[in-house]
């Protein structure tokens, strides 16, 4: 969203723009969810090796992609908050982390539900699975640090630093399957030579990704609006007490 970052720069503008966009995002999310679920569950072929369990992919892969994409956005927002002291970027980072944590948890749990029937195990400590688990801990650490101090600005600062440091984990997750021997198979989608997924399976995958992306924007907007209004309330209260 770099192109309209200035529109988001001040809270008033953000409130206006997000109110304008919210219904559209909601509609897109609902439509993508309906179409995605229809194709994922009813109208897509079974896999030549994995049979019906391929349907877990339509949740697992988009959730894992979102877990990383949200983390990177959070790190960028944190860096902007640290460097330019932009209150709205700090707020964005704060509101992203529960959503990112949810997607990371889903990637792990659906992977586990997929691993049992296909690999023969719920969990192994290979590089891909371990680094994704570390991502969940980073999200939880971020949320914990935000609330760990009496002075919220210190919490924001330390959580921001943790988030930026943790960005090192992102390339490790992505390339773990290429750098080391892992039980997890290499990338199917973002690989050189193009995706190794049949078009009939790419369709539900893309729709579910759109559904998660829309969900992320929707919930992020709702949480940020709520925080901005809450801070307005706090300011009014302070004025009343001291006024």
């Amino acid at each position, binding site marked *: 969203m770099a192109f309209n970052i200035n529109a988001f720069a001040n809270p008033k503008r953000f409130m206006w723009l997000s109110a304008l966009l919210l219904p559209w995002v909601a509609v897109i999310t609902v439509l993508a969810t309906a179409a995605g679920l229809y194709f994922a569950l009813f109208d897509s072929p079974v*896999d030549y090796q*994995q049979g019906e369990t391929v349907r877990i992919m339509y949740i697992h892969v988009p959730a894992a992609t979102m877990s990383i994409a949200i983390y990177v956005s959070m790190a960028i927002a944190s860096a902007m908050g640290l460097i330019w002291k932009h209150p709205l970027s700090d707020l964005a980072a704060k509101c992203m982390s529960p959503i990112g944590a949810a997607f990371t948890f889903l990637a792990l749990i659906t992977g586990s539900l997929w691993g049992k029937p296909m690999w023969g195990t719920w969990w192994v400590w290979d590089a891909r699975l371990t680094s994704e688990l570390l991502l969940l801990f980073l999200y939880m650490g971020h949320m914990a640090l935000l609330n760990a101090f009496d002075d919220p600005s210190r919490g924001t600062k330390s959580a921001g630093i943790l988030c930026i440091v943790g960005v090192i984990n992102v390339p490790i997750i992505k390339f773990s399957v290429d750098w080391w021997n892992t039980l997890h*198979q290499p*990338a199917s989608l973002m690989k050189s030579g193009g995706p190794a*997924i049949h078009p009939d399976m790419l369709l539900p995958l893309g729709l579910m990704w759109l559904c998660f992306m829309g969900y992320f924007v929707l919930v992020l907007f709702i949480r940020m609006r709520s925080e901005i209004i809450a801070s307005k309330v706090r300011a009014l209260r302070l004025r009343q007490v001291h006024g």
Partner: protein
Amino acid sequence: MKRKTRRLYMVLVGLCALGAVAAIVLAALEDDIVFFFSPTEIMEKDVIPADQRIRIGGLVESGSVTKAADGVTNLFSVTDMANTIEVQYKGILPDLFREGQGVVTEGYFQGKTLLADEVLAKHDENYMPPEVAEALKKSGKWKEGEPISEALKNGHVPDDAKPAKEY
């Protein structure tokens, strides 16, 4: 220097330092991070103590899967196309286990044979309907184990292999 610029540089320098540290640590831990060793890597190691748990991975060699005389122990070979290791496993093999398929197995070495107590199936990065896999194999455009990106990109999915809309 303005404070903002200084903070920007601090973040950038910190990230670079961190990246360097991470790269060094990961390189040093290489042997601990790999989930399994290939048969060739096992051959390169001089001695593997009999009490050391070890994981090996590779493909199940075609034609190597048999049952021992007791009727429950599975015998098969794991290969990386250069070297091969024989494995004995008493237990139920996972669904995906078959000849030519990736596998990771863990246990103790007895001489040159791995006495495995765990066998995990690896699956590849390809996703496609069975009809398409069948047709691609028949046309000789693709072999099991290879990525199908090329075959898909070149439109080598024959019309008669397009799955019927009845799933």
